[in-house]
């Protein structure tokens, strides 16, 4: 299991957005998270990628060296009473309180894209991709200033990686344009390319097909498959386009009102009475939190 989510709970004041959610993502799979509006899909994403700190639960990710990463711990947890007796646990929590944060989740190998495109619009396409490789080009101020050999080498590798992904998505021609100038469809692709530049093991795509025309969706579909098959990247996606979901997913998890109501293969989900009821039965759609 690449990512296992256990008893994940997220509360906003008195509102329970996620209640004891549990599911797993197999390495090398495409897993889809679906559910009606307000089901808590995006909240689950936010917790997994460190955008939010979950209220409770456990998120275990198998990191780059197969070493388990406790996502909630590296975001910086609150101190607990037991820490007074256990200096090691105390030091660990203190360390992550001071130096932890969402960037560590990304560095461990989980990256996400957003439903609305969030590019650095005033930077060029290539610069957008290079920013995402901060970890790989993490040299100090002076090395960058005086262009040390190690820095230049890392920088050249970073550009190569950027070119590789731009080529993959067919937007290499735009490499030196400002990101904000690209067509909407290309901006979405660039956002995925940028996420891929962090060299993730798991990429979380939040409604990648939203706002794309059928032809673009078709293309995206094949790109996502290739990511899994050619580059061995695991994919977790939220999507409302059921055609796309049923077509490419290996595993589907259905959320409703902050709880997992069904999980299984696309075929099982399509024939599930609970899922049909959740989508069509009750008329109390809420706004997405």
């Amino acid at each position, binding site marked *: 299991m690449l990512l296992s989510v256990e008893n994940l709970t997220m509360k906003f004041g008195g509102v329970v957005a996620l209640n004891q959610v549990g599911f797993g993502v197999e390495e090398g799979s495409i897993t889809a998270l679906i559910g009606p509006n307000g089901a808590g899909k995006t909240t689950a994403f936010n917790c997994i990628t460190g955008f939010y700190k979950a209220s409770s639960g456990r998120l275990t990710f198998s990191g780059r060296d197969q070493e388990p990463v406790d996502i909630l711990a590296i975001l910086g947890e609150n101190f607990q009473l037991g820490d007074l007796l256990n200096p090691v646990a105390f030091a660990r929590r203190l360390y992550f309180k001071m130096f932890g944060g*969402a*960037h560590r989740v990304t560095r461990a190998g989980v990256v*996400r894209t957003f439903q609305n495109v969030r590019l650095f619009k005033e930077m060029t396409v290539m610069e957008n991709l290079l920013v995402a490789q901060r970890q790989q080009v993490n040299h100090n101020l002076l090395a960058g200033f005086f262009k040390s050999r190690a820095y230049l080498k890392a920088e050249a590798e970073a550009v190569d990686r950027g070119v590789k992904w731009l080529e993959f998505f067919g937007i290499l021609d735009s490499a030196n344009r400002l990101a904000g100038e690209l067509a909407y469809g290309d901006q979405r692709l660039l956002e995925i390319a940028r996420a891929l530049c962090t060299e993730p093991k798991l990429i979380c795509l939040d409604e990648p097909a939203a706002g794309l025309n059928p032809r673009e969706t078709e293309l995206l579909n094949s790109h996502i498959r290739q990511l899994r098959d050619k580059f061995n990247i695991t994919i977790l996606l939220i999507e409302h386009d059921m055609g796309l979901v049923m077509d490419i997913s290996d595993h589907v998890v259905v959320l409703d009102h902050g709880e997992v109501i069904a999980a299984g293969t696309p075929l099982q989900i399509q024939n599930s009475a609970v899922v049909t009821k959740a989508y069509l039965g009750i008329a109390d759609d809420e706004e997405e939190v």
Partner: protein
Amino acid sequence: MDLIIVGQQLVNGLVLGSIYGLIAVGYTMVYGIIGMINFAHGEVYMISAYLSAIFLAIITSMGVVSVPFALLLVLVVTIFVTAIYGWSIERVAYRPLRGSTRLAPLISAIGISLVLQNYVRIGQGAKSQGVPPLIDGSFRFHLGSPDSFIQITMIQCLIIVASLIGMGALHYLMQKTALGRACRATQQDRTMARLLGVDTDKVISIVFVLGSAMAAIAGVLVTLNYGSFDFHIGFVTGIKAFTAAVLGGIGSLPGAMLGGLVLGLSESFFSGFINTDYKDVFAFSILVLVLIFKPSGLLGVAEVEKV
């Protein structure tokens, strides 16, 4: 005769403007990255003036006789120690309050500013301190008769050259290196930068450090130029540098440099031709006029509400 005054005020204005620009950079960078004004930045400049005098005394007492070498050493050590002050200000006044209301860090920064002023006042005394002139010599450009000339002292040359180098280096760092890229990304969308693996806390610290280093250059140069300073110099100079940053478009690095020069020149011409006593009034009138007629400043981009 008039040409002489114009020329002389031009020189003085450039010198003053360079100093304002160096300090304004610190305001504009911090604003650019966290959207808040670092009201303790003037105090950082004031502290660097003291530090430079202290290090100058230490280094000369250690037997360094070569003036250029001693100055270089003073500059490097002052930049380093001032940068630590800048880093600490961020750590103490800003980071714990990140995520709280916008006003909270503003108030804590004013608090830090008062703490630093009084810390220097108690530690160094309220009397103004001085250093003896180290560099003398000047260039004179004669126009016609032997007693009408424009004078540029060596120190004034040094100020202009040093600030050009400092700002050029900073611009290069922001535009052409991986660190600068991370800074610009953090400036545009901090959350997104973090989710892409950029350690935004570290980037913000570095911005404070760089801003303080620029203020330190200004502090050393001003100490050499005017030779005297007290615990209160950070306030007026800080506010003027802030005016320069707003004038140039806060958040924009070239804007801060340009704003500094425009403010320095206009202040210098105002005091040369109209009235010296009202030069501060004039400087702040500029701030008011800019805020009314072009709030985004000379090179600033009109603020777009982030969604």
